[in-house]
């Protein structure tokens, strides 16, 4: 038995003190001293005979009840080398007979006292399926709802933020709209496609609503205009594409372009919408959208080369 556990379970303490001490430790979920291992405290509680004996006034009382609540895989003492990492973590435990197959989120949140971190690596295999998760969210299980957010917010946010350049400040509101819309129609999710794709589909609609609003506000010119042609520089862009060096720079340039230009580029190329489609959605002529797109491309390339030259210079 660990020396600190003996200390914790000192014979001078009453049952009530031991129980309340362990409950406090359980609830606080913090083990500030690396050598005080909750797993071992559990083991101690499990194997040590109560000072008042099994027939004492508290037999089957709070201590037994607590033991009943927190038994399970968490009662494994952790190894010394890992104790300092693990025991500093939260201590919440799992009830006896509870499901063991749970998602990353649940596993992470259900780490029992003294549970070694090595177990965490296998947690991913126990993730709830999309349909199970949806069913639990529809039952209004708040923890499943938290997992739903935790699992998919990154994907939706990343997508929306990239599509809203240069108005990334609008991303938070739009992501919120996506999740609320998802909740409204979650009962229609059939699981034919992954939940992530389903959510991104909603996000795409929201993003296109945003594009539509932005481009409807502007006046497009149908007349021909002479755009500067810079054919020799196209080569630089091709080269960068070949070297796959474009991610960061593209985002930066899109962020500095006038919003109309970014929107039309994103809509046409990132969302793969045809000119006809865009024109129909914003109530403008195809020719007008084409001119706008040409100006946007020209501005994009201009800034691309400026950055290229400043990087070389």
């Amino acid at each position, binding site marked *: 038995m660990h020396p600190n556990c003996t200390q914790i379970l000192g014979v001078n303490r009453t049952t009530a003190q031991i129980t309340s001490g362990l409950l406090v430790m359980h609830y606080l979920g913090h083990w500030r001293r690396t050598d005080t291992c909750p797993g071992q405290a559990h083991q101690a509680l499990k194997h040590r005979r109560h000072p008042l004996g099994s027939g004492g006034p508290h037999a089957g009382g709070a201590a037994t009840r607590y033991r009943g609540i927190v038994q399970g895989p968490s009662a494994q003492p952790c190894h010394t080398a890992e104790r300092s990492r693990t025991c500093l973590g939260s201590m919440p435990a799992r009830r006896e007979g509870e499901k063991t197959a749970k998602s990353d989120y649940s596993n992470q949140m259900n780490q029992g006292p003294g549970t070694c971190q090595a177990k965490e690596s296998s947690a991913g295999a126990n993730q709830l399926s999309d349909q199970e998760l949806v069913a639990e969210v529809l039952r209004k299980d708040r923890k499943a709802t938290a997992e739903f957010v935790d699992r998919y*917010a990154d994907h939706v946010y990343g997508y929306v933020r990239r599509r809203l350049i240069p108005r990334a400040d609008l991303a938070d509101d739009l992501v919120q709209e996506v999740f609320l819309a998802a909740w409204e129609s979650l009962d229609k999710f059939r699981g034919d496609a992954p939940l992530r794709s389903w959510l991104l589909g909603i996000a795409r609609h929201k993003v296109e609503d945003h594009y539509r609003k932005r481009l409807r506000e502007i006046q497009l010119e149908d007349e021909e205009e002479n755009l500067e042609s810079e054919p020799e520089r196209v080569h630089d862009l091709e080269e960068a594409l070949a070297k796959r060096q474009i991610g960061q720079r593209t985002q930066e340039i899109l962020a500095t372009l006038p919003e109309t230009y970014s929107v039309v580029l994103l809509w046409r190329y990132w969302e793969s919408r045809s000119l006809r489609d865009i024109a129909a959605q914003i109530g403008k002529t195809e020719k007008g959208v084409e001119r706008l797109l040409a100006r946007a491309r020209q501005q994009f390339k201009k800034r691309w080369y400026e950055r290229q030259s400043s990087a070389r210079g």
Partner: protein
Amino acid sequence: MSDNLQHEDRLFELLAQQADEAGSERAPSRLKSKLYTSLVQKQQESGPLLALAETRANGHGLCVFEDLWSHVTSAEAVQSFNCCSVCHARVLAEHWESAPIYWGHCPYVAFGKK
């Protein structure tokens, strides 16, 4: 469309494709917290949340407050009460990136984990 324009069009399609592959961003924990809060609020609009006891029976852990609250009574109004609505952890998490909240089974703690 001229050859030059077609070429440029294709170039930008490739650009979009590659730029998309390169991007991967994490949502701020503040945003996740707000999303969770508003989703739960939305759920409450159409009726009570799943009882805390059932949530626990589903294999999910309850935070210290939910755990204590769930033992008060088995009345539905109590069991379905959203403890987060009156919890300072929620307020902290919604306004502070990686807020200093540490107790177990709190969703706002999980959102802050990298």
